[in-house]
């Protein structure tokens, strides 16, 4: 592919920016970071229209030999799954810079440098088409995130930072071994696309799935591995929480979708019951924990556990609705939870407390703020017309094809989400504020409006018109499903009718289900 290497620019522009901020004063560091992140948005946005939605191939591919023996390539590409995630990342980063404008006072240069390094590494994870390159970006994020939590975090930051670091590192070391084993078993290549076409023995798939699971499940985080998340979220600065919730968690589910499903189709099917159970436990458990929190950030952190449960649930349904819903939900969760964390950051700047009890009755003194909070909360609980409704509906529709019982349990999560979010909104927005707090409660200023408005726009844009995203990811998702069920549906159904029921339903009603999700979304 000839032409300007846009994807490389997307990754390296922030890294160059990170180097540049070290040479300037604090005020200019903020400005440079903002300019660089906005420039990254401007680079990434045209890709949305240049992307060919009818193709399931990687697009904008760039490839160069990086290390000659073993052959490791610097290879980047975009498909319908990574495109929305990359755009989400680039759009969120300027907002992270803006929200940290005044809340970060110490070591501003380092802070901005760390944010920019994070951006480069995160985009790299979504773009990498070589397994080693992927791993390099995947691990390269750890140290910046560790510093972000540990240097600029809250009172208990040291504990939270090292816990985050060791959890994720311990998970990803097994990933490295799995990558190496796949290299020797999969024809001596690290090429993700080539590895996705190989066939591996069942026992090998079993072990590699477990290794992948260790890395991705910690990152998502799935139920028993989630304990680092509330700590990290509570202690991280606002920008750190946003990055963590909106982008880092997606890497786990992206890993499942990009690697586990296409490379290990047999093992993925064998592990489906386990994954479904863990997802449903996460959905319900996360929601219950969120109900009990009196710290706003912890509440949102546990709601993330619950929402990410929907994503993993959808992924392991192996049907169009489930997986597309999961990808939608990944993007939606990034936008909505990012917005919620930004809201918490705004109020924390004023009252220096994240306790719900300290921040009650904000509608009167801060009407604009309350509006934003309510919008984000309603989006998070999946109100029709907002983005999350589309994703959650599709995941549940996909689950329904697989098991009605599972759908019933998963739906509990939506009910509970309504409970904890509306209860939170009730207290924070509609109480009587403490008189001594009133002078601190200034309404959102222009900078904060600029931070929050893009997300509100996205919430309604995706909620009302999900089709542009869905059409772009459709061929890529179908390709993944074709890997899991390689045989033609009729033949496969004859061999194992039970297993393939969902697949047949998809084929028969794929488009119908598709439009129904869309029309449901338009019926607020």
């Amino acid at each position, binding site marked *: 592919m000839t032409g300007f290497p846009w994807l490389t620019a997307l990754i390296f522009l922030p890294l160059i920016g990170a180097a540049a901020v070290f040479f300037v004063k604090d005020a200019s560091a903020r400005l440079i970071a903002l300019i660089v992140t906005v420039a990254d948005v401007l680079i990434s946005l045209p890709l949305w229209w240049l992307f060919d939605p009818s193709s399931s191939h990687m697009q904008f591919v760039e490839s160069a030999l*990086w*290390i*000659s*023996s*073993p052959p490791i390539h610097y290879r980047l590409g975009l498909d319908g799954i990574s495109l929305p995630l990359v755009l989400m990342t680039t759009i969120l980063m300027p907002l992270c810079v803006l929200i940290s404008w005044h809340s970060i006072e110490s070591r501003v240069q*380092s802070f901005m440098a760390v944010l920019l390094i994070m951006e480069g590494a995160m985009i790299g994870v979504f773009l990498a088409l070589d397994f*080693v390159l992927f*791993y*390099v970006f995947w*691990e*390269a994020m*750890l*140290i910046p995130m*560790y*510093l972000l939590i*540990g*240097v600029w975090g809250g009172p208990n*930051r*040291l504990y939270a*930072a*090292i816990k985050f*670091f*060791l959890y994720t*590192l*311990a998970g990803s*070391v*097994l990933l*490295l*071994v799995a990558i*190496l*084993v796949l*290299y*020797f078993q999969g024809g001596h290549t690290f090429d993700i696309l080539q590895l996705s076409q190989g066939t591996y023995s069942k026992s090998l798939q079993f072990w590699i799935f477990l290794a992948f699971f260790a890395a991705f499940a910690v990152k998502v985080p799935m139920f028993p591995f989630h304990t680092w998340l509330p700590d990290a979220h509570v202690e991280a600065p606002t920008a750190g929480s946003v990055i963590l919730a909106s982008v880092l968690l997606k890497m786990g589910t992206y890993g499942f979708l990009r690697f586990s499903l296409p490379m290990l189709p047999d093992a993925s099917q064998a592990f489906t019951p386990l994954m479904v159970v863990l997802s449903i436990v996460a959905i319900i458990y996360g929601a219950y924990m969120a109900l009990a929190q009196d710290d706003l950030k912890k509440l949102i952190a546990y709601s993330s556990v619950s929402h990410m449960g929907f994503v993993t649930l959808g992924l392991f349904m192996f049907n169009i609705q489930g997986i597309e819903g999961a990808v939608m939900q990944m993007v939606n969760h990034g936008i909505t939870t990012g917005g919620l964390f930004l809201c918490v950051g705004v109020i924390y700047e004023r009252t220096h407390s994240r306790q719900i009890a300290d921040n009650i009755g904000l509608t009167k003194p801060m009407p604009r703020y309350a509006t934003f909070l309510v919008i984000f909360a309603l989006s998070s609980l999946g109100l029709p017309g907002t983005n999350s409704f589309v994703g959650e509906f599709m995941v549940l529709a996909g689950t329904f094809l697989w098991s009605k019982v599972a759908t019933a349990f998963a739906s509990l999560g939506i009910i509970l989400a309504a409970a904890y979010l509306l209860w939170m909104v009730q207290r924070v927005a509609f109480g009587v504020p403490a008189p001594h707090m009133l002078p601190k409660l200034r309404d959102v200023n222009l900078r904060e409006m600029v931070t929050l408005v893009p997300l509100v726009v996205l919430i309604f844009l995706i909620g009302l018109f999900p089709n542009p995203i869905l059409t772009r990811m459709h061929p890529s998702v179908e390709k993944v499903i074709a890997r899991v069920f390689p045989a033609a549906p009729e033949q496969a159904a004859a061999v194992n009718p039970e297993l393939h029921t969902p697949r047949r339903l998809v084929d028969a009603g794929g488009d119908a289900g598709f439009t129904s999700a869309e029309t449901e979304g338009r019926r607020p």
Partner: protein
Amino acid sequence: MTFSVGDLFLILPELLVITAACIVLVLDPVLRQSDKDGLVWLSLGTLAICMGLTASQMSTPTEAFSGLVVIDTYGAFWKLLLYFVTGLTILLSHSYLKEERLYFGEYYGFVLLALSGMMVMVSAADLLTIYLGTELMSLSLYVMAGLKRSEPRSLEASAKYFVLGAFSSGILLYGISLLYGATGSTRLPAIATAIAGQSLDDPLLLFATILLAVGFGFKLAVVPFHMWTPDVYQGAPTSVTAFMAVASKAASFGAFLRVFIEGLGGLKANWSAIFLLLCLATLVLGNVVALVQTNIKRMLAYSSIAHAGYALIGVVAAGRLENSSGIASVLLYLALYTFMTFGAFAIVAMLRKDGVEGDEIEDFTGLSKRHPVAALLMLIFMVSLAGIPPTAGFIGKFYVFMSAVEAGMTWLAVIALIFAAVSAYFYLRLVMVMYMREPSDAADSAPQFVMSPTLSIVLACAVAGVVIFGIYPNPLVQLAMQAVLTLR
């Protein structure tokens, strides 16, 4: 035995280094204090010339002195590495000795003598020549370890190092004599021919192999022969510690691999099992004990023990592989290990507190506020030691683990990686202390980082190696692969 003048040309680098060492030793007493910097430049100049000479010797193996010495790419790889480390050591010592008020011109002489010993070690093809090189290196290091004569800890280090080193040399020599008894030769190619097709059923051969493994085990500081390392590394002057941790380890690995591949290659399967045990013990003990250290030099000592364990993975894999990727991964690992370990020790050396070294981990508290550049460099070295991309440490680990997986020892890679995750904890503890703790109020008692032009060269070289080879390791990988091809 025949002798030809041509042989002398082949060992010209060695001769040059020894000559320079003698000149330094002779000139030191007659030079005025102010002129002694000239000795530093003389030593560095010699190294630069040797580097050029050795680089031109990267070719097919040539035997010299009837096969006592062999000049090949393999030896050249190690020699280039050793010149580089020695150059850094001299530059670091230039600032460090001034701070410590240790004015010994013969110091540089000993550094060069140790270097010549190491050069002999990596290019010798005869067990006795290797032994000679080992002794030349060790004797110089014993002296250098005790250079801080006013400090009991330094003397203790020197004495301990000497006693244990002499002991291990004895064991090595015993192994050599048994091997001579079993095979009738001390030449590696002759030994290889003699043991072809044999296994360790022969008790003589078994004992010889074990004793050689133990003897080299001491030099490489692998568990359970590591006992001297923390005390010696802590007590010795830090510039010497850096030299020992990097150069002496590299040279020992160079000789060790040549002996076990070229000489005892026929017993691959057998010694691979021995080193597997040593490797596991080293990984576990090195990484776990490093967790509880409060002194940075001791922590780095245990870290260097652990890194020898990672390198041993490549050796174990080499014993089970037909191709040479296992050995190449060891070469690569040691080369990359050089940059990060030397860099870390250089920072430790120049952190001064009340005129002495601030070598407690506590002394690094809040370093990022007082000396952001030093803290950032230390952060990079620690991240690299922990093996996190995109740094050199990751590349080293990647190749070592790759050879383990290739040899069908995935479980070993898993164990090693789990301990790599453990090691991240103590490396990051230093990062935490530097970046996340506030420095104490008493600013005057806080340790200061003393920067000097020579030190900045050292740090620049080290950090450039860590970052550049972390991002683009290809040239070094190619060099290591070529080097092992000349190993027969």
